[in-house]
């Protein structure tokens, strides 16, 4: 019962970083504005998918669209913090080839009514790579914008933990779906736990910037 409640309502923690990021939007530099866009896209998707789920309608097409939007918005975030560290060609490649693959995946590889395992897994891999690159940058360079250091540390850690924890699930989501309900619920509750920690850490990051 408690697990069910957490699974169903836990993701709504997202409203905290969403409201915080919207409230302080004007104060933010470009890097944190990307997080506001990310939160906005996530809240919108969260609410819509919850409504569809309640109406027993398939909400996977929404996830396919969300994956593309989330990817582009987070790529913008990483571009703003890593453009001086990684070659520009990496970002050009990531901004062009990967979205094209996502579209191909949605239309030709995996059904739009099923979990987009390939896209989600590739997305997770890319963000794990970018998050790790930021840590390498952290220990090899002096921070150019000290005001952003702590918020980005929190946000990057949030994304790193979330995508690292979720990549296995993203990869096997279709294989395990609908087999054993109890296990399904446990796995997706674990995912909810990761999502909640993602939102909590993002909130802390945004709060640290607000305090600054």
């Amino acid at each position: 019962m408690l697990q069910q409640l957490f699974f169903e309502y836990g993701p709504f923690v997202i409203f905290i970083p969403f409201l915080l990021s919207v409230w302080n939007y004007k104060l933010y530099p470009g890097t944190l504005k990307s997080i506001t866009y990310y939160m906005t896209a996530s809240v919108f998707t969260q609410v819509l998918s919850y409504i569809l789920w309640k109406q027993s309608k398939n909400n996977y097409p929404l996830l396919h669209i969300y994956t593309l939007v989330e990817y582009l918005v987070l790529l913008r975030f990483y571009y703003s913090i890593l453009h001086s560290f990684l070659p520009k060609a990496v970002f050009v490649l990531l901004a062009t080839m990967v979205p094209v693959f996502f579209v191909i995946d949605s239309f030709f590889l995996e059904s739009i009514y099923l979990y987009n395992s390939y896209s989600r897994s590739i997305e997770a891999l890319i963000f794990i790579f970018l998050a790790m690159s930021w840590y390498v940058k952290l220990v090899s360079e002096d921070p150019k914008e000290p005001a952003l250091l702590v918020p980005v540390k929190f946000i990057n850690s949030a994304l790193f933990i979330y995508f690292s924890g979720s990549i296995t699930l993203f990869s096997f989501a279709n294989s395990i779906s609908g087999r054993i309900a109890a296990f399904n619920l446990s796995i997706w509750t674990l995912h909810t736990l990761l999502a909640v920690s993602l939102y909590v850490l993002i909130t802390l990051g945004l709060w640290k910037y607000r305090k600054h």
Partner: protein
Amino acid sequence: MEISKTLTLSFGVITGMIAFVIIAVGAIIIAIRYQKRLLQKQAELHKNDLQHKEELLISNIQSVEEERRRIAKDIHDELGAIFSTLFITINQLKTTDPQNAGIINTGKELINTGIKSVRRIAHSIIPDELELFGLNIALENYLHPLKTSFTINYNNTLEKGSLSSNEEIALYRIIQELVSNTLKHAVASAISILLDKINEEVVVNYNDNGNGYDHGSALKKEGLGSKNIESRIIAMNAAMNIITSPGNGFSCVIRIPLPKKLK
């Protein structure tokens, strides 16, 4: 068979999720700790660098003072002795010729002027009363001739020995520089210099009623005099606060921490 496969897969997924989270958290902790250690090292290097620069500055100031002392001593002792011997030698000359007697007298007067010049030059390089009697007497002697043209308010309530001899020299030079600036640029009629011990610090209040200046723009084109003051302030681990603006005179407060033994 199918259920067993699904169970294995589900276990695998859960284990994978937990394992990756643990790895990610571990990596974050390692990266942040490493970065903290790097920052600590950088701060330490920066601190050592500052300390080294401060030591260089102090040694530079000390060697300049030492050199001044040596030059003043050489001028006073050697040239002074030559003039004195010359005076005694000329004094031994006997003549009945009034023209020669006049030349001898002129020579004696020139020698006396020379002796006075030597004393004045040696004194201006390093006042001996600073070493013999301390800062208070040295400052009184320095300010005394100015009293004919300026209203000087000088008050020193410091006990003798409050400052080390190096600090006394540094403070003397700073006040000399401040007074010199007032005389050169301020068009002032009054100077006030107050030295006092407040809590654990020696506090120097320097004021003049001159023109004052725009401190902000003056900071950009600091002269040698200001740099000398700044160097001595750093060497004493002291702090200086200047308040001035056009038409409002010049005010400066210097705070020198007292030596530990007096605290």
